[in-house]
C-alpha cells in the first residue's frame, strides 16, 4: 500500500496515463487461463440451456405452483446489480460527487454486462423461447400484437432501453480515453483504438458537445435507472399473489438493487485494483465511500423488510399473513433468516472505520451481501408462489442440476466479458481522473488518518 499512497500524493496527468495504460498491456498466461475458465463456464451453461430447449422443462425442478423460480431470481439479481453502475456514473455525476471519478467506469462496465446477462434469463425461462419476438410489436399481416397491459412487455421495453442507454453512456465516455490510448499504442492495437476513437482529438468543439451530451445522458439515465427496477418490481407487485401484491415493491427493489450493485462493485474493484496495480487511482478512500453507500442502502433494506411485514400485520389479511408466516417459519424459512443476516446484520460492521478501510473485510462483506440479495429474490418470488392462495396447491421448489449450472454459467459469462473489457479498454477514466486530480489530492489529505490502518 505504502507505495501506492506515495504516488497518490503527487499524481500528475502522466502518472494517470501511465497507470491506466499499464493495465492495458498484453495479458499474461494467468489472465488468459482465467478468461478461458470463464468461457468454459459460459459454454457449460449454454449447453445446458440447449438441452433444456431440446428436452423441454422436464429436466428442470420446475412444477406447480412455482412457475417462476431460479431463472427469474437470477434475472432480477443481475438487473439489480446493474443499477449501482448507473447510480455511480450518472446520479453521482449530476451531484458532482468527487470520488466517483476513479470507479465509475468500472461500475458502468459492470452495469452493461450485468444487463446483458440479465437479459438472457427471461429467454432461458420461456417455455417456447423460439417465439420470444412475439413480445415485440412488429407489423404483421395477421395483425397480432403484444398486450401492453402486461408488466412483462413493460419489462422488455425497460430492459432494452436501459441496455441501449447504458451502452451509449459508457461508450461516449470512452471515446476520449480510447483516443488517448491510440496515441500511445502501436501495431494492431493502434488500428483497433483508432477505429473505436472515431478520430477524436479533444478539440474545444468536440469537448463542447461532449460535455452537453454527457450531461444530458446522465440526466436521462437517472430517472431511467429508477424506472427500470420499478418496472421489474411491478412484474410482481402487479399480480394478486400474496407476498407479491405490495405497493412498497418499487422503492424497496430500487434500494435493494443499489445495495447489491455497490456490493458487487466492491467485489470486483478490490481484486481488480490489486491485479491491475491501480491502487493509486482506486484508493482506499473510494472503497470507503462505496462501503458507506452499501451501509446506507443496507439500513434502507432493513427498514423495507420491517415495513413490508408491518403492512401485512396491519392489514390482518389472513392469506397474506399465512404466506409471511411461511416465509419466516416455513419449510424454507431458513433462507429468510440467512437473508436477514446477510443484508441487515453483517453490513452493520461497516459502521466501523477500520472495517471500511480494510480490503479483506470489505471483500468478505460484499460477498455476503451478494448472497443475501440473491436469497432475497428467491425468498420473495419462489416462497410466495409456493404458499399461494389455495393451500391444496402449496408445494416447495428445489432446483435441479440444469438451473444450477445455468446460474453458474451466467456468472462465467459476466466475468468473461468484464475481464476482456478490463484488459482491452481503459477501466478507469483518464480524462475524468485528470479533471479530478485536484480533488484527489485533497482526498488523499482526507484519508491520511486512515492510511496507517491500511
Amino acid at each position, binding site marked *: 500500500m505504502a507505495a501506492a499512497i506515495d504516488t497518490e500524493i503527487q499524481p500528475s496527468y502522466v502518472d494517470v496515463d501511465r497507470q491506466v495504460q499499464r493495465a492495458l498491456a498484453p495479458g499474461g498466461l494467468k489472465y488468459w487461463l482465467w478468461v478461458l475458465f470463464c468461457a468454459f463456464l459460459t459454454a457449460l451453461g449454454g449447453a445446458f440451456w440447449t438441452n433444456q*430447449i*431440446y428436452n*423441454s*422443462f*422436464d429436466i428442470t*425442478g*420446475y*412444477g*406447480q*405452483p*412455482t*412457475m*417462476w423460480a431460479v431463472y427469474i431470481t437470477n434475472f432480477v439479481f443481475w438487473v439489480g446489480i446493474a443499477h449501482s453502475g448507473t447510480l455511480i456514473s450518472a446520479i453521482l455525476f449530476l451531484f458532482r460527487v468527487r470520488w466517483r471519478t476513479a470507479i465509475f467506469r468500472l461500475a458502468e462496465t459492470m452495469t452493461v454486462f450485468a444487463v446483458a446477462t440479465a437479459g438472457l434469463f*427471461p429467454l432461458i*425461462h*420461456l*417455455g*417456447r*423461447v*423460439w*417465439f*420470444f419476438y*412475439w*413480445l415485440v410489436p412488429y407489423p404483421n399481416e395477421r395483425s*397480432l*400484437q*403484444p*398486450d401492453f*397491459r*402486461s*408488466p*412483462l*412487455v413493460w419489462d*422488455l421495453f425497460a430492459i432494452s432501453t436501459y441496455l441501449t442507454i447504458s451502452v451509449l453512456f459508457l461508450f461516449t465516455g470512452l471515446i476520449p480515453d480510447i483516443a488517448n490510448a491510440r496515441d500511445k499504442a502501436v501495431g494492431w492495437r493502434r488500428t483497433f483504438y483508432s477505429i473505436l476513437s472515431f478520430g477524436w482529438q479533444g478539440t474545444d468543439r468536440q469537448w463542447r458537445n461532449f460535455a452537453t451530451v454527457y450531461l444530458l445522458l446522465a440526466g436521462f439515465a437517472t430517472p431511467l435507472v429508477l424506472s427500470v427496477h420499478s418496472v421489474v418490481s411491478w*412484474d410482481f407487485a*402487479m*399480480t*394478486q*399473489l400474496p407476498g407479491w401484491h405490495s405497493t412498497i415493491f418499487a422503492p424497496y427493489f430500487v434500494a435493494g438493487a443499489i445495495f447489491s450493485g455497490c456490493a458487487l462493485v466492491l467485489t470486483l474493484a478490490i481484486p481488480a485494483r490489486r491485479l491491475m496495480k491501480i491502487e493509486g487511482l482506486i484508493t482506499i478512500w473510494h472503497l470507503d465511500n462505496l462501503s458507506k453507500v452499501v451501509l446506507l442502502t443496507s439500513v434502507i433494506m432493513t427498514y423495507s423488510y420491517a415495513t413490508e411485514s408491518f403492512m401485512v400485520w396491519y392489514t390482518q*389479511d*389472513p*392469506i397474506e399473513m*399465512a404466506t409471511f408466516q411461511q416465509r419466516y417459519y*416455513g*419449510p*424454507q424459512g*431458513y433462507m429468510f433468516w440467512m437473508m436477514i443476516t446477510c443484508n441487515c446484520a453483517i453490513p452493520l460492521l461497516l459502521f466501523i472505520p477500520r472495517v471500511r478501510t480494510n480490503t479483506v473485510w470489505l471483500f468478505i462483506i460484499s460477498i455476503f451481501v451478494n448472497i443475501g440479495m440473491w436469497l432475497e429474490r428467491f425468498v420473495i418470488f419462489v416462497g410466495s*408462489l409456493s404458499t*399461494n*392462495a*389455495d*393451500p*391444496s*396447491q*402449496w*408445494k*416447495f421448489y*428445489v432446483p435441479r442440476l440444469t438451473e444450477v449450472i445455468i446460474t453458474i454459467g451466467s456468472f462465467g459469462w459476466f466475468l468473461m466479458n468484464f475481464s476482456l473489457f478490463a484488459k482491452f479498454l481503459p477501466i478507469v477514466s483518464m480524462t475524468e481522473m485528470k479533471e479530478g486530480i485536484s480533488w484527489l489530492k485533497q482526498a488523499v489529505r482526507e484519508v491520511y488518518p486512515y492510511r496507517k490502518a491500511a
Partner: protein
Amino acid sequence: MSDGLSRRSFLKLAATAGAAAAIPGCEPAARKIIPYVVPDENIIPGVPSYFATTCGECSAGCGIIAKVREGRVIKLEGNPADPISQGAICARGQAALQGVYNPDRLSKPKRRKADGSLEEIGWDEALKLFNDRLAAAAKAGKDRIAYIGAPQGPTLDRLTKLWAGAFGSSRVVFWERIGTEPARAAADACFGRRDLPIYQLDRADVIVSFGADFLETWGSPVEQTRQYADFRTPRMRRGGLSIGKAAYVSPRMGITGAKCDAWVPANPGTEGAVALAVLNVMAGAGSLRHAGTAASAIQAQLAAYDPESVSRKSGVPVSQIKQMADWLGQAESPLALPGGDDPQTYLAAYAINALTGSVGNAMVFLAGAPAETASRPQETSAVVQAIGAGQVDVVVIAAGANPIFTMPASWGAATAIGRAPFVVWFGDAPDDSAQAAQLLIPTHHHLESWRDSAPRAGIYGLGQPVMQPVFPSRVLHDILLESAHLGAGEAAQSITWENAQDAVNAAWQELQSKLGLDPMGAEFWNQMRRNGGSFERAKALNVAFNPDALKGATPARVESESALLLAAFPHPFLYDGRGANKPWLQEIPEPSNQIVWDSWAEIHPETAAQLGLQEHYKSTYLYAGIDVIEIATPSGTLELAVHITPLVKPGVIAAPIGQGHTSYGRYASGRGANLWAFLPAGSRAVPVRARKIERQYKLVTPLGKSDMMGRSIVEVMSVEQLANGIKPPIELEEEENTPKLPYEMYDAWQYTGHKWGMTIDVNACTGCSACVAACYAENNLPFGGKEEVDKGRVMSWIRIERFIPSADEAAAAPNLYIAPVLCQQCDHAPCEPVCPVFASHHTPEGLNAQIYNRCVGTRFCENNCPYKVRRFNWYPAEWPEPLNLQLNPDVTVRGPGVMEKCTFCIQRITNAEIDARTEGRQLVDGEIITACAQACPARAISFGDLNDANSAMVKRRIDNPGRTYTMLPEFNALPAITYLRSLYWEKGKA
C-alpha cells in the same frame, strides 16, 4: 471379402444415419394423416356417431353411449335411457377406453416354451392346440375341463356352460371376489329368496350404512351417488327444511363417511355386530314399528349383542350405538345398508329395514329378478381344489377373471393352477393369471364384442361392439363354440348358434316374445340397439320377514381386543384390481387420501406414534419419504408405506385393494401390494402384527396442505343456518371485507349474446372424480406417471380438492371439505392482462380462452391465478400406441412449453352453436353440456348461459338463496362459476 461391409449397404447405412440425424426439431412433428382410400359411407369425417351399449367394467352394468369418430371410440358417456346410470358414468366406466386401447394388450396368440418364455404362434396353431387339448381332456373323462371366468352376462355365461357341458364338464365358475353371496344368503334367511334387493336412498330420510361404501364401490355407485345427492337436497320434511341424515359404520372414513353426518369408526368385521346391537336397542326402545309382538323375541335372540359387549368388541361407544338406533327409530323411512362379506351384517340390516317398514319403500325386492351371475364361493373353491388335486386336464381362465390375483390365499389358487397340466388364458391385457398359462389367446374387449347384461329385474342391457377391434383378437365364445363343434361331436349338437352374436340375437328374440312382441319383427332389434337395451319398470314384491332368521346370527368373526387389525378396502378406481392397468385411474388421486400410483397403509396418528412411525423430511424440510411397515398376517407378511391420517380408526391399518400386480402391463405391474393374497376367504379384515422397518418410501400426492386455513374454497353451512336464514360467519366476514360498489376502475365489460357459466352444488359432490376422468378423456389431457406428479406436474384441468377440518372447526363442519375446482372463467381474470402476447384473453361469450399457438410460455398467468387451475406442459405428452387412438380429434394436443386450462369444453359449445346456426334456430338450454357436468353422477355440476334467466344453471342459483358463494371472493376476480354451500347437521344436535 464378401463378409466385409459392401459399398451398397454402407451407403444405405449412411443414408439412414443421415435421416436419423436430420429428424430432431424443437416441436414434435405433426402426426401422419392417412386418407380413406375407399370412403366408408357410414362415416362422415368430423361427425361423431353414437352407439348405445353396456358397461362391462363392473357388475352394476350401467348403460353407456360410446362416441365414435372416424371408426374409433373416443369417449364413453352415460345412457340417459338407462334407469341405473340415467346418463351419468363413473371414472372406472370412462377408463374402459384405456382398457380397449391399452398398449399392453395381447396382439397375437402366444405359447409358453419349456424355458418359461413366451413365443408368438399363429392363430391356426393356437386354436388347434387348444382344441386338441380339449378333445383329449373330454376323452379322458367327465369334468376334466375347468373354466374360470368373470360373469359376462346371462347369454354368454349360458353359452359357456353349454360349451363345457358339451365336453362333459360342469366345472364352470364365474368368479367375482367382491361377490353378492352374503347378501343372497341373508336374503334367503330373512325373506326366503336369494335375489338382491334394490335400494332407493332418495326415499329414505335416515341412512345408516354398516360397512357399505355406497358412494365408492358397493352396489351400483353411480345410481347411489345420484340418489344420495337427492337424499341430501334440502326440502321440507316434518314441517321444517331439512336434509337426509346419514351415518357410516366403518373402520375408515373414505368419501362415503365424509359425506355422511356421522362416521362411526368400528373395528373391521364388527359392522355386523354393531348392526345387531343397534337392532337390539331398537327392539328394546320399541321403535321396530312393524315387529309387533315379535319385538321381544327378537330382543331375546339378540341378547348376545347388548351395546356394552358389542362396544367393547367393535370400539364403537355405546352412546353412538344408541344414537344410531335413535336416528333409525325416529325416522319416517329409515334405511340400513349392509356391506362387506359378513352375512350377519346383512341379516341385521334386512331386519332393521323390514321391521321399520322400509322394505318395499327404500329397500325393494323386484319381481322377476335375474339369475345369479357369479358362482358361490364354495363352488369356486371346490373347482380350485379339484384342479389342485389333478382332476382337471385343461384349465380355461377367461374374461378378466384373475383368480391367481384375487382368490384367497387359503385356496392356494396359484399352486393349484400351476399344477394343472394345461392352462389356457383368454383375455385382452395379460394379467397375473396369464403367467401360469401355457397358451395365451387374445380376445375382444367388451367394447368390441356382443354381450348382454341383466343387472336387475326389468333391465336387459344390450352390449354391442362399438367399433372394429383394435387388435387382431377374436371373440372368446366364438372360439369356445368352434372348439365344441370340432371336438365335442354330437354332444355339441344342442348348441345351435354359429357364434356369440347369434346367441345374443337369439336371447333377444326370446325377450321379444316374452314382452309379447312378434319375434320376427326386426324393428325391435334395431330399437334395442338404439336404446342400449330394454328398460322396463319391474313391480315391487311384498316380502314377509322371518323373525327366526336372526337365530342364525353368528358372533363376529374377527375378535380383537388387543391385536392390530388390517382392514382392506376396494380402491374406488382400481376396484378389485382390474383398473390398475389404466393410467387415468392410477393418475387421478384417490379422493379421500389424494394418493396416486400406489397402495398405502392408512394409520391413525395415535397408532403411528405407538409404532414409532413418522414422515421424513429433507434438510430443507421438504417431504422426503415415509416409514414403511411390515405387516405380518396369518397368510404371510407384506410391506406397505404408511399414510398417517385421522380418517381411520385407531388400532386399524386400512389399505386399498387393487395394486400389487406381478404382471398386468406397464402401468400396473410392480406397484404396492396385493391385499387379496392376505385376506381369508369371505372377509376383508384380518388381525395382524406390524413393525416399522428401516426403509423409507415416497408416497406421491398432488395435494399440498390438507388444511383449508379458513379460506373460502369449500364453504359449508349447517341445516339450521339455512333453515333460519342465518348467514355463516365466513360470509359475514367476506361482506365486511368486500369494498362497497362502485369500486371498479373501469366500467364493467358488456356481454351481449351468450355468457357461459356454471353452478356447482358442493353439497351434492362426493368427490367421486368422474368429472376428472371425463375431462381427461374429452380434452386429451396427458398423464405423466408417479414421477411427474411428484414434481407437481399433474395436468388435470379439474381436480377434487379435499380438506380435513381442523380440530376447532370439527364441531361445525362436515367430516371432510370436498369440492371440484376448475377454471373459474373469471370476468376479471387475473391471468389475462399479465399475458404479454394475448394468449390468455376473454371471448365475447365470457370464456377465459387460451390460444395455445400464441403462448410463448412465460407462465405469468398461472402465477396470477388465485385458483391455480392453469396447467403448463412441462414435458412432451405421450400416449403409447394405441392409446393415442382415443384422443379427441376436436381438441388440440398441446406441445411442450405452452399453458393450458379448462375451456368449458369449448369444442362442444362451438359444435352446438354451429348446429344451431345451420338449423337457423336459437341454442336451447341444456343443449350444451360440458364433459364434467355430463359425467357427474350426483348432478352436482350444471352448465348454461348466464344471460338466459331461465337456464337451469341460473335457476339453480336462484332456487338456493343463502347457499351461493364464489371461491376466494377477496380477489374480486368475478368468477363465472358459483358454488352452492355444502350442508351438514351440527354435531351434537344431529
